[in-house]
């Protein structure tokens, strides 16, 4: 029983980070209908920037701020410079451009910071909490991770549902042409959408960094698992991203703990196929998908 609880806790902790990456992918998919394969590279790059701050003696919170701010800027710049020209081209062109960006970001990080992975501090201690004399696989830092992702989800929900800016963002995502006819500057909204997505991604990078270390290739699996989570949840649904992330995190943890750690990636494949066979557009996409 302790094992089950611990595996579940480990699953939830990694699951919320998958959820954050998935959310970043969902935000971009909803606004520009592009699967952003550069997401893993973008969050790697911003986490490296945060690491540089810490390496020069900056505090954890300053570094977090730098990561988030640089995420915003990076997302906006990438949308303007590299993605805008392919937004109206065949969708696969965008796939290749984001792949190229991913490779380029990874190579740039290797050039600037080298290939040796670095330590990244956690915000709070990683020593597990004790319940009735048993140490759980859940530390104050894990609680912070869960809390931070939850807080960002809430803030985003508020932004999207409660503000005029959110209304513009949603309108641009759902029906860009109609939105333009209402005077919404859709181009700006798309840039902002990318910036927000990159912000969420950069948060995920900083949160996972203590557990994978900071290096050019250390975040590669984040994209794969984040994308898998987003597909499981349904790419049009932010709520789906969260549920997909948690499901995937737990599934991987159980496979690793009860079946074989060699089958973790195969387990991800199995989980994905199972969900898609039952719901071909993910768990949370309305079955009558918008096909206008």
């Amino acid at each position, binding site marked *: 029983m302790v094992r089950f609880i611990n595996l579940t806790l480990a699953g939830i902790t990694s699951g919320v980070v998958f959820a954050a990456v998935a959310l970043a992918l969902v935000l971009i998919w909803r606004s520009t209908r592009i699967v952003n394969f550069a997401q893993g590279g973008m969050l790697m790059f911003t986490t490296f920037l945060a690491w540089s701050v810490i390496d020069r003696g900056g505090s954890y919170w300053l570094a977090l701020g730098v990561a988030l701010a640089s995420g915003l800027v990076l997302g906006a710049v990438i949308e303007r410079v590299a993605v805008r020209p392919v937004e*109206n081209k065949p969708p*696969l062109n965008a796939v290749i451009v984001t792949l*190229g960006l991913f490779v380029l970001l990874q190579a740039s990080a290797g050039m600037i910071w080298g290939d040796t992975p670095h330590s990244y501090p956690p915000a709070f201690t990683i020593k597990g909490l004790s319940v009735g004399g048993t140490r759980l696989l859940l530390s104050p830092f894990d609680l912070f991770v869960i809390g931070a992702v939850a807080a960002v989800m809430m803030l985003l929900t508020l932004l999207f549902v409660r503000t005029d800016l959110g209304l513009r963002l949603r309108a641009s995502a759902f029906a860009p042409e109609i939105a333009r006819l209402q005077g919404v500057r859709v181009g700006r909204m798309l840039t902002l959408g990318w910036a927000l997505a990159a912000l969420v991604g950069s948060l995920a990078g900083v949160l996972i960094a203590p557990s994978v270390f900071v290096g050019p290739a250390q975040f590669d699996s984040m994209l794969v698992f984040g994308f898998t989570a987003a597909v499981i949840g349904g790419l049009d649904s932010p709520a789906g991203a969260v549920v997909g992330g948690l499901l995937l995190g737990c599934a991987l943890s159980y496979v690793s703990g009860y079946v074989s750690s*060699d089958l973790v990636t195969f387990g991800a494949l199995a989980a994905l196929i199972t969900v898609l066979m039952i719901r071909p557009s993910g768990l949370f996409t309305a079955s009558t*998908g*918008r096909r206008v």
Partner: protein
Amino acid sequence: MGTVLNVLRRSTLARHTAAALAAIVALYFLTTAVGPYRDLQIAQAAYLTCAVAGLTVLTGLGGQISLGHGAFMAVGAYTAVLVIGHWGWPLAAVLAAAAGVTAVAGVVVGAVAARLHGPYLAGATLAFAVGLPGLANYKPLTDELGGQNGLTLVPPIPPAGLGETFPLERWQSWIACLGAVITLFLLGNLVRGRFGRTLRASRDDEIAAALSGVRVARLRITATVVSAAAAGLGGGLLAVVATLAAPGAFPLTLSLQLIAAIIIGGLGSLPGAVWGALILVYVPTWASDLSTSSGFSHNIASNLPLAIYGLVLIVVTLAFPRGLQGGLRDIGGAVRRRARKRRDPAPGPRASTSGPTTTHPGGADEATPDQAGARPDDRGDAGGRGERLRR
């Protein structure tokens, strides 16, 4: 002479046969003229051509994205090595088995994929590419599949008739080139026929195709099987050329490179597949030579080839949205138009450079009239984007 030309013009089969024969002759002279390392590069380009051409049929003509073709190559490579190791079949039979077993895998993947669209299909095939090579590490299978180290293959021996000093690399490149030419020939005929027409029709409008009697799901599975067989043959040839099958040889990057190759070559164009494969082989080698001789510090020199590769992907996609083959066609078309214009000045004013339509919807292999005259509703600046990926 005139009748020959006439036959060629009229019969696709005759034209393709002539092209295949010409390619074989050209490749014979090329491979004989160059040194062993160049032969090896040609062989690499050839086995990649098989896989890229297979993907072109599925993604370019069928509109189904696959980020998992590297895994199909893995199936083909492992099949080839295992068949040779266990039964020692002749090479042709081995390669046929590689294609055949991968085709069977294609049936399974195709049956799953037929229900999926757009990013969901991308996600499923991506998980396939990541998950499948991991199976080699699973304990019950490691004895057979060699675990993380994979399997090694004894290189094929050139027939004694070619002489004792006949270089192995040339023999390997002959095998691979023949495989590539046969693949292109078969796929070329296939996509020119009914199969290709219905495939394109179902890509452009699934519902309309279904209404006109096309069984879309079955067609998609067939396309996956054909495509998988080509990738499997590519994998089998890889095993013969690189003499190995190992999980590390089929990382996710391989699958992503194949997708990049079809876009850069020109989506849906079989000649484009050759361009794409050539880029995959030559750009990294060239970039690596450049960085070795650059004298940069270790960190920069190590990552420079990767950076160049990323830049090439971005720049070529932005500069040639329809791929190199499409770019060539555009340039050719522009030259022809200019020649025609000189003879007969075009009527009507041309005030603005950008008409309402400068982009091609979907994966356009050839500009068909119905695409040029698409409904105005599809032509919003940003509208309709989702639908295209979802198709």
